[in-house]
């Protein structure tokens, strides 16, 4: 076949190229499977993240510049308006806080009567969000604080609205938080109204969580606020997770599936709070803010 004839050297090169392709593909697939399973590769990956830290820092610079520009270039009227708004918010929040403090004192007294272990105050740390976009299939945030700032793996991430997620990777300068909305994320919750315990999973869609396998007989309604139940010991009890916005029967018709709207603002905000100490130790003098 004259059309098929090419020099033997060229065909040899072809073969070597194909073999190299297959070798690289095999390594890639092996890495994919190992990384997907978790285990030692994930830990090695956390170590390797140190390499890409400078890239994150560089990519985060524009976001930081925009922020500082916004802060410094705000006109006087804008600043006055913002100041006024913040002052009003402070008044409202403080009024609420006073009421809560009264409730907390009463709560402590009642707990004392019951002889139960008291809950301590919140010890939190403010961490700025580095504004860079990670892989859109995974719901992650990069925080501009790492082990040098005392961030630890497994720390609970909060914002003003409620639970945001948890820290899953820590490098010296940065850390990565897994958001509630990641499909890999689950959090044990309880209905604030009826105390029914559920598990809320992420959907991969920011702005929607899902609570599956709700028994038909369970006292769960649309509009119920869900708070962490403290089961599983990763998330301390009592943080707002979200609100049930819809309930429908699942495929088996034996259980309900609830759509949950997260309470935290999970799109790119400015700062988040990292829970430093799990409020489990008895602290009589501290007040719950």
């Amino acid at each position, binding site marked *: 076949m004259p059309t098929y004839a090419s020099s033997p050297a060229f065909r040899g090169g072809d073969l070597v*190229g194909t073999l*190299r*392709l297959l070798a*690289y*593909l095999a*390594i*890639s*697939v*092996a*890495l*994919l*499977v*190992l*990384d*997907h399973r978790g285990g030692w*590769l994930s830990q090695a*990956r956390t170590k*390797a*993240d140190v*390499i*890409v830290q400078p*890239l*994150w820092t*560089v*990519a985060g610079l*524009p*976001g930081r510049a925009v922020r500082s520009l916004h802060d410094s270039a705000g006109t006087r009227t804008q600043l006055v308006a913002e100041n006024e708004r913040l002052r009003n918010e402070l008044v409202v929040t403080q009024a609420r806080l006073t009421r809560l403090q009264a409730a907390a004192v009463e709560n402590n007294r009642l707990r004392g009567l019951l002889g139960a272990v008291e809950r301590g105050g919140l010890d939190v740390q403010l961490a700025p969000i580095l*504004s*860079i*976009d*990670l*892989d*859109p*299939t*995974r719901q*992650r945030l990069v925080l501009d604080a790492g082990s040098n700032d005392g961030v630890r793996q497994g720390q609970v991430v909060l914002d003003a609205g409620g639970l945001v997620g948890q820290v899953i990777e820590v490098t010296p300068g940065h850390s*990565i938080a897994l958001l509630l909305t990641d*499909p890999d994320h689950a959090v044990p919750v309880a209905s604030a109204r009826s105390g029914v315990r559920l598990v809320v999973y992420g959907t*991969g869609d920011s702005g929607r969580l899902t609570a599956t396998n709700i028994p038909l007989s369970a006292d769960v309604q649309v509009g119920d606020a869900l708070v962490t139940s403290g089961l599983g010991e990763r998330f301390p009890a009592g943080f707002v997770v979200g609100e049930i916005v819809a309930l429908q029967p699942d495929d088996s018709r034996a259980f309900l599936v609830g759509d949950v709207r997260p309470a935290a603002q999970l*799109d*790119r905000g400015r700062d988040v709070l990292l829970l430093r100490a799990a409020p489990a130790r008895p602290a009589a003098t501290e007040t719950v803010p």
Partner: protein
Amino acid sequence: MSRAHRAWVLPASLLLAIVLGLLPLPQVLQPLRPYWLALVLAYWVLEAPEHAGLGLAFIAGLLADLAFGSQLGEQALRLVVMTFILQRFRARLRFFPVWQQSLAIGALLLNDRVIGMAVHLALGVQPLPWSYWFAPLLGMVLWGPVYVALDTMRMGAWRKR
């Protein structure tokens, strides 16, 4: 001297491509984010095949996986496949006019999306929403500017010799 310059432009452009991929975009524009790393790598595979091959594609992909937080090996696999196809058709692609090259790059980026979706489905990870399939179009449009920019960077570095 020229060698040192060339050695400097290649990794710098790849790192820049990764950083461009990380830059924050408004939520609406995020699906349109072009795959900068693939564009830059395609340039080097076409223009400097003695420096850019499967090995470089694999390493750049791994680095991008670490930086973007995607599954380790996903982008490595996608870029290795793209590089292999480019190497096979390099002799023909190099002499295409830029608009024809753009079409070929668009097809490669589309193929890359398909591979990405296949990987996600195989691992049971949620695939990307449909709006992300428009990104190859933008990548196609950007091939010309990227090509010219990298060419001037490389040639400029050469002339400094």
